[in-house]
């Protein structure tokens, strides 16, 4: 019997019934030409596997894990090229925040309807309410409420900065003490639920800290001293 190309292809794709398969296998045993066609199908499958299967071994990028958790970055723009910027400097964050002021006002405006935690001002974003209070008084070791405090550190200009997490809003960020207010340098999505909850701050926050920090983060004692001193810029 003759086996047409479509049937052979279906065989190669595992689409046939056991009876049909048996028939093809019989034909294959008798027809070298058919065997050659089948091996071309199999070779192509192997080539495709060789090219694409390694993707399965790659760890999924964090942004996809975040997306699957339903976390959205406050400062994410629609432009795809911006999604690729894995590591942004604080300067770039600032520039982006400025260019996105409209979107951020809307975003934080929605938050502000209940309890303002971040206010957009002409100078940038400032901590308000529970966030401001936590940045003022809460220590990393304290039991977190609406705000969890992470690292406290000195920036290159000598001022104090602290990382925070808004526990009910899946948002983390960095704020720095400037002229008596906590200026929010950046925010990023914080994964919240499931086994994938990250320990500590999102990569964007840590990346920002790395660009901002001078020396080491404050230890618990230095953190408490700085708080008691009102986060006043320490003399050099």
């Amino acid at each position, binding site marked *: 019997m003759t086996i047409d190309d479509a049937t052979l292809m*279906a065989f190669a*794709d595992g*689409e046939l019934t056991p009876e049909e398969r048996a028939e093809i296998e019989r034909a294959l045993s008798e027809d070298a030409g058919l065997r050659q066609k089948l091996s071309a199908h199999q070779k192509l499958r192997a080539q495709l596997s060789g090219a694409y299967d*390694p*993707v399965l071994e790659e760890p999924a990028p964090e942004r996809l*894990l975040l997306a699957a958790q339903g976390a*959205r970055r406050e400062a994410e723009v629609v432009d795809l090229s911006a999604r690729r910027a894995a590591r942004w400097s604080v300067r770039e964050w600032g520039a982006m925040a400025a260019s996105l002021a409209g979107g951020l006002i809307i975003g934080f405006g929605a938050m502000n309807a209940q309890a303002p935690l971040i206010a957009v001002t002409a100078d940038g974003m400032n901590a308000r309410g529970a966030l401001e209070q936590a940045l003022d008084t809460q220590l990393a070791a304290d039991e977190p409420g609406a705000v969890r405090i992470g690292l406290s550190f000195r920036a290159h200009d000598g001022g104090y900065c602290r990382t925070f997490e808004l526990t009910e809003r899946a948002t983390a960020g960095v704020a720095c003490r400037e002229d008596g207010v906590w200026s929010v340098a950046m925010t990023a999505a914080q994964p919240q639920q499931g086994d994938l909850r990250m320990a500590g701050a999102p990569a964007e926050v840590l990346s920002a800290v790395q660009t901002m920090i001078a020396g080491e983060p404050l230890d618990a004692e230095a953190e408490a001293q700085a708080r008691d001193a009102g986060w006043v810029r320490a003399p050099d």
Partner: protein
Amino acid sequence: MTRESEKIRSEIVAALPRLRRFARALTGQPADADDIVQIAVERALTRLDQFEPGTRLESWLMTIVRNAWIDEARARQRRAKVFADAELGEQVGDGGEAAAQAKLEVNEVYAAMQSLPDEQREAIALVCVEGLAYREASEVLGVPIGTLTSRLARGREALQRMLGDAP
């Protein structure tokens, strides 16, 4: 969040490797592939009510990935065919002649796939890369099985011609 939607989220996470592979086969570009997977995952989460329990979540997600790529490609008025850009080179890695040869072969496959018409490439990606059954693949693409198999046959023939050893 309901227990059910939490379960779906963890299933989406589990499906990410395959979604990324499928997207890589469609787009030929690692960064593009992850972009459309991200868009698709975000869309899927807003449309969980459209998922029919009992059907395969992966097939449903692949439908969304495929549609996201169509939208994206249209928005860009078809991306230029760049076969072996720096990013791909990084993904494949380097180190020695064998690796260089492997990289060359991978690039050949990517290039051959990208040269196919979209309808053939997506059929090949679903059946030959992702291993979907004809019926599942035809549902993802929204075409009859006969249409799927004729696209598959033409795509295969073209790929074999481009990638085969024979002249």
